[in-house]
């Protein structure tokens, strides 16, 4: 991974904390930026950014030099509820002992704290929660995609995990289903960005999407399993599915809006079926988050909103 920044030791005194080398694995999604200290230059050099897969050579370098630092705390320090939530949700999604409504109730209770994080684009909680719970996207896919384009990769990871979390809240509480859906969203976002002539747009024709599916079916994207017919059609003919009212397409649309990758009228977002469902599920918490996100996105498009309007 490229060395991005370098802070001198004097500037960053007490800022960097030592990272336990034994917690690092090849292929893992790094949850915080990792630095190496260069005594000759008296500087900390960033070796890998957060949300990127840890390469073998980087890990070897860390092991050889024996010092790894990070400016952020551990995952448990930053998100104290994450680990427990991940364990509970994983257990529940794999289990068939609990009736579906009870399962969904418990999942909702365990992941309620993630609602504000969903609308906060600076927070990595949703991505890390999903990676911890379902181990998706898998390492091979991460390596493959991270090599193509870092920006696309980061966007796609965020989008897919956001979509997965929303689907989980909507009651699709089956591990296999969720995994396939997230992989579909991830590959679709990657393919959409890769195939788009404008670069970065997620709106593609069905023909282009079919090409993306062909890529996956021909096993050119490593780590992605064979998908169910539902996800194949979702990937290949999303525009048709959208016209026919598939809820999963709406989930993807909503996620794109949340991630700031698709512009939509806020009223339309509020009236979306899944938005109403989630409001029914989480009540004011979700509604507040939604309106805050809407305001922020409006500010990005139209500039800051006047205070008088905000008060109104």
């Amino acid at each position, binding site marked *: 991974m490229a060395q991005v920044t370098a802070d001198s030791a004097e500037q960053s005194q007490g800022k960097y904390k030592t990272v336990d080398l034994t917690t690092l694995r090849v292929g893992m999604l790094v949850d915080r930026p990792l630095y190496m200290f260069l005594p000759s230059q008296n500087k900390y050099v960033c070796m890998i950014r957060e949300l990127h897969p840890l390469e073998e050579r980087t890990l070897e370098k860390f092991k050889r030099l024996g010092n790894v630092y990070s400016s952020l705390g551990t995952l448990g320090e930053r998100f104290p509820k994450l680990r427990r939530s991940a364990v509970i949700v994983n257990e529940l999604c794999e289990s068939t002992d609990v*009736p*579906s*409504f009870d399962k969904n*109730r418990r999942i909702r209770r365990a992941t309620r704290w993630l609602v504000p994080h969903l609308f906060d684009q600076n927070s990595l909680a949703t991505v890390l929660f999903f990676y911890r719970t379902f181990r998706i996207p898998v390492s091979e896919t991460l390596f493959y995609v991270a090599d193509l384009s870092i920006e696309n990769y980061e966007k796609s990871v965020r989008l897919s995990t956001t979509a997965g979390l929303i689907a989980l809240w909507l*009651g699709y*509480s*089956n591990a296999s289903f969720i995994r396939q859906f997230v992989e579909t969203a991830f590959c679709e976002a990657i393919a959409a960005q890769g195939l788009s002539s404008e670069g970065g747009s997620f709106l593609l024709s069905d023909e282009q999407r079919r090409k993306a599916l062909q890529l996956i079916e021909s096993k050119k994207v490593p780590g992605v399993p064979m998908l169910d*017919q539902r996800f194949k*059609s979702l990937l290949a003919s999303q525009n048709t*599915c959208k016209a026919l009212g598939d809820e999963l397409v709406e989930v993807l649309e909503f996620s794109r809006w949340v991630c700031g990758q698709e512009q939509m009228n806020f009223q339309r977002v509020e009236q979306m079926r899944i938005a109403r469902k989630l409001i029914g599920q989480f009540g004011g918490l979700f509604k507040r988050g939604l309106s805050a996100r809407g305001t922020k996105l409006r500010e990005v498009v139209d500039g800051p909103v006047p205070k008088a309007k905000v008060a109104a």
Partner: protein
Amino acid sequence: MTEAATLSQKLRAGVEEMLRANARVLYETLFSIRHIGRVIDFCLYESKSFLDAAQQPLEFECRIRQILEIAIFNGWTNSREGDSAKCVEIEFGWDDIRLIISVSHFVAPDVQGFVPGNGLPSNEAASRMAGMFEKIQALSDGLVIRHEQTTGRVQLVAFVSAQANAKGSGIEYVNVDSVEDIVQPNLRTEVAIPSPLSTGKVREFLQDEREDEKKSKTSGLRGAAREDASTAGLSNWKVKRLDQPKQDAEPEFKSLEKKSDPKEALTSERTEAEPSLAETPEKNKEDDQFLTSLMKKAGEGEDLASDSEQKGKASGKDWGRISEKSGGAADRVIDDRIVVSGGGPQDLTDEELNVKDLKEKYSEDLQQVLRAKDAQMALKSKHYQDQIDHLNSKVEALKAEKQTLVNRQASGSSLSSSSSEFIDGQEKAESKEHVLADFEELDVKFQKLVERYQSEIEKGVVPESARAWAKGFMEDMLKDRAALNDRARAVATHLKKKEFDFKTQETALREEIRLKDEQLRQKELSLSKTKETLTNTLKSLEETKRLASAGNLDKNEFNQKLASTERNLEVSKEAHQKLIVRFEELQKKWQEDSSARILLQQELSKQKPLTEELKRQNKELQMKLMQVSSGSNQQKSGGAAHDLNRRSGSGAESEAEVRHKLDQANKLSKAMKDELERTRKRFDELKLEETNLRIELVRVQGQLKAATKGQPQQPQKPQTQRGSTPLHNAGATGPTLGQQSVAKKPKS
């Protein structure tokens, strides 16, 4: 229904959009059918208020239950094959007028013609679906089937009205792919917000469920359960098999072992005798045969059913709780087979089918159950008969014993001789007679009792005491069994929990071991590195020791140092000599240059007065030229004749002379100027040379000083750069301020 018509024009159909604003909509996504009974129970529990408002709540509940069950089983059994995650989506909503059920699933593209009256079924799955849709249509007030051939999605929307006689038309089929006008979803603001089923009163429901379960286990007798069911409200009517509590309690644990296959999970939830619902069409045929035979049997047993009705053991109103009343496994089989089998009874196909038909159907089933119950009663009476026989045999034995006692008494009285003995014997005899009289009385009473029992048995009436004893015995037995079941379940739960705990611990320990291994490896690595450095240090130490022990260390070192010092001294001497020679050469050159400079200066001083003289002459000539030019102007203004005279005389001669002189002076001044330039250039060059020589001299002096101190110093190259001034170079080499001032002197 009119809603069905409007629904057929929409590309997407959400239940909440079809209901009023005060509606409540629940949705649920099923990935397993293990708990569908509970899911349906919970749906109905949540819609209790709506169900209670119906004219016949129990019938209404049963209809909705059946619609839901058939729709879910239809979605599950006819789902697309090869999918790793089967998904059936349910929406269940109601307002104050009607209730709408929507069930969506995906079918394979080759499943066509599954809508009754809309072409022939393409395969078995399609025919099975058609049968189920017919059933749902019979139970609901309106049914719309929406099919997207592109994606294979099938959505079933069933309408049930709270009002009676709101029967709609037949099944409406909508091919969504052919709907051209895309109608946008209704964006009215007052639309109901759909909530997941999990947002309902889950805790209350589960608590009620547990209480029901407990009651059903502890009560033991069906009569009590029936009373509970009739008084406890909606949650109590859930099907309980009182005589098989263990099978109810354990399916979760049994199915845990087989949970990889949802079909097996389904079968495990039911009785063991019951066949799988998700089996092949042969099974469906068997179901049909079974159903027809059942109907025949029901026809035969009409007499018995009428008797049972007379006795008041069952009434038509209670058909909704049929499973609870019958209690046996057979009733569950009947119920489920009717619900699930693809064929269905012949009398349910027409539109005239209504709730009465359903009642009749279920009353037949009830008769069948009652026949089974009579058979059980006969078995029990036989058991009582056996007990009475056993008591009779005991009475006979007692009679024989009594006879032997009488005989012994007779023989014993003849043998007594003495008076005292006679008196004692008389007293004893009296007491014995008294006892015997009592015994005879008891015997008579017992005989009467036996006769009464016999007569009662002959009459077919079971004695109250026997009934009470049997009842108590059965209660005890059931209690024991329930307790045992509870214990077994507790043990199983405990085992499962322990197993889970152990697994978690094992995983944690494995993780810990792995971490420890990693740490150990790292420590080993660092240890090996430390060892290596230690070995190297030891090696060098050994070498040093060895040298010290030989005693050569100091001598060698001194010799080496001496040799090197001598070598350095020689080198420095040579350098010193060379520098002296160089210094002398440079000094000589400088002297020569300075003498040449002096000469040049002398020449310059000589040339200076000459230059001054020439300048003066030049000035004079210029003055003269000015005068001449002013004279010519006067001539122009004075008169032409006078001018001509002057020009023709000595004036013309002097003008030519002056011009010549001027030219000469110009030439001379030019030559002098050139000479001056050359001299200046030479002077500059000499100044440059002088500065260089000074720098060289300073450097040589420095080297000489260094050499005289005894330090060998490499001769430095002159650091003159092209384009840089000598003065700058002199500064760059680091001369003292005094030297710099010396270098600047010629400039000033």
